[in-house]
């Protein structure tokens, strides 16, 4: 009798620590963010009071925050496209067995495994206007006449160069996901296409691409969430200047430097909603299961 009861209770005992963590540290905070976004919360200037959409209105009256929204959209656009395209290229190059493939894979993964703060510090040295290797290399190749200040002058150039640092970090993730999908395609399909006279490019377009589409969708959504959240690279390479600021950086500044918690909550809620909507849209757009692509 006792063992039967224990057996029935076992699953609940096994999942309860997980539930405690997820409920206390994910669900409750998310609900809290949703509610508090509609309150005036200033830890140094109480009282806390209901303001309706007051926080949201204030956000859109703040030019620095409006700028950061546009910037983040650009970060996301560059991040998703570049990491998926590069990831697919790397996946195609590394999908088949060859000597040193194991070592290649280990080295390609490396940028993903290192802390983005450290990577951003390294890239800030690469972009350095007086001694940076980017200037030096481009000058040696005669691509530029003189040394440039890369960051902080032109808005779109600054954003692109900062996003490259993130793309460098997250591309291995896309490459691994897409490579796994490529490897699951039966080799017979390529053999059949080859017999039919299809070249490498057309068999990639007609066999690989349709079959890796779900993996591309997964990689794109991962890149989307990561680039919408871009913070570390912006913090190191742009500081808190509005020029290249991201929404996450503005959330941090609003909350922990201006100590306007209500504004931070409202901003957080908007981005959470935007993330959810954009991920679903991306999945709907790309995620179509293709059972038999070869006809």
């Amino acid at each position, binding site marked *: 009798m006792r063992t039967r009861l224990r057996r029935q209770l076992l*699953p609940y005992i*096994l*999942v309860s620590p*997980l*539930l405690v*963590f*997820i409920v*206390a*540290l*994910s669900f*409750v*905070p*998310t609900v809290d*963010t949703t509610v508090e976004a509609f309150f005036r919360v200033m830890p140094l200037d109480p009282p806390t009071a209901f303001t309706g959409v007051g926080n949201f209105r204030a956000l859109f009256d703040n030019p620095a925050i409006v700028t950061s929204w546009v910037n983040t959209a650009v970060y996301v656009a560059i991040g998703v496209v570049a990491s998926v395209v590069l990831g697919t290229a790397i996946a195609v*190059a590394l999908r088949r067995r060859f000597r040193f493939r194991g070592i290649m*894979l*280990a080295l*390609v993964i*490396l*940028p993903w*495994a*290192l*802390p*983005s*703060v*450290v990577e951003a*510090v*390294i890239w800030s*040295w*690469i972009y350095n206007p*007086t*001694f940076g290797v980017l200037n*030096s*290399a481009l000058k040696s190749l005669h691509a530029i006449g003189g040394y440039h200040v890369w960051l902080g002058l032109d808005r779109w150039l600054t954003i692109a160069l900062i996003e490259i640092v993130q793309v*460098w970090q997250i591309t291995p993730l896309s490459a*691994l*996901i897409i490579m*796994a*999908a490529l490897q*699951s395609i039966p080799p017979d399909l390529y053999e059949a296409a080859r*017999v*039919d006279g299809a070249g490498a490019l057309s068999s990639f377009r007609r066999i690989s691409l349709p079959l890796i589409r779900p993996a591309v969708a997964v990689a794109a*959504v991962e890149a989307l*969430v990561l680039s919408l959240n871009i*913070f*570390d690279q912006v913090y*190191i390479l742009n500081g808190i200047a509005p020029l290249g600021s991201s929404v*996450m950086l503005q*959330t*941090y500044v609003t*909350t*922990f430097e201006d100590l306007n*918690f209500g504004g*931070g*909550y409202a*901003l*957080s*809620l908007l981005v*959470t909603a935007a993330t*959810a909507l954009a991920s679903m849209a991306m999945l709907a757009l790309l995620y179509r299961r293709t059972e038999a692509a070869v006809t």
Partner: protein
Amino acid sequence: MTADSQAETRLTRAADSAAARRFARALSRRPARALGRVITLAVILLWSLFPIYWALNTSLTTLSAADSTPARYVPSPLVGTSYKSVFGIGGASQDGISSQLGRSLLNSAVESGGAMILTVVIAVFAAYAFARLQFRFKRTIFVSVLATLLLPAYATLIPLYRIMASLGLVNTYIAVILVYTSGFLPLAIWILYNYFNSIPRELEEAAFVDGASPMRALLRVVVPVAMPGIAAAAIIAFLLGWAQFLFPLVLTTDLSTQPVTVIVAALNQQRIVPFTLMMACGVLAAAVPGVLALILNRYIVEGVTAGSVK
């Protein structure tokens, strides 16, 4: 022409052209192809490794050599002064960098190691329940846990800070470890759930026949077989923990708990630490995850792609 003979002609032609192409490739295109392939791989390696090499290069030379124009692509002269200075060997360490870096590396190890252990233990039990046992609300719980994977840091950052502040846990290892664990659990669950599902049930059933309880079967039969999956979840949790910046920036306030990412960012912000020293700090901050990733990359590949193909 009949359909049959048409098909036959097409087959012959296909076989001919395939054979011809194979021959042509063997004859002339192989060197070109091999060269193209080597170039492709070299470009991929250059893209992946150059920034890391550049940090090593700068950290291993003198400041005047690092500041030379045009840049020197190999460390000449090759010196270890930056590392000596970061470790405080042979004279004054600049601005106490050695004590800051040493302590923050320890903090990073405690925080990401603690989160790794807690994440894996909790996830093994829960993932086993999801993969093997029947209980009410299983699907609802499973889906809502996985849904938090898509929850951006935005959604929880401020409330987590306030929760920890109200519990008096700001600037403690506990706060950092708890927050990391809550963030890493969904991914660990996903990896382990997929791994458990790939293990044949017969293994446990044999143990049940011998009179083992499900708990015993999990610990004695499933866990040893699932070690690659558990290793994947553990290494990924550790790497994610080591890389965290925004949460510890908010949750830690001094050197007693600040991880190495926060210290490196602070040193960088001072704008007075020379780049040779900054790169040495960066290399040291990246050394642990870098070496782990190189040794254990098989498990990372396994974990990152878990379930993504299905």
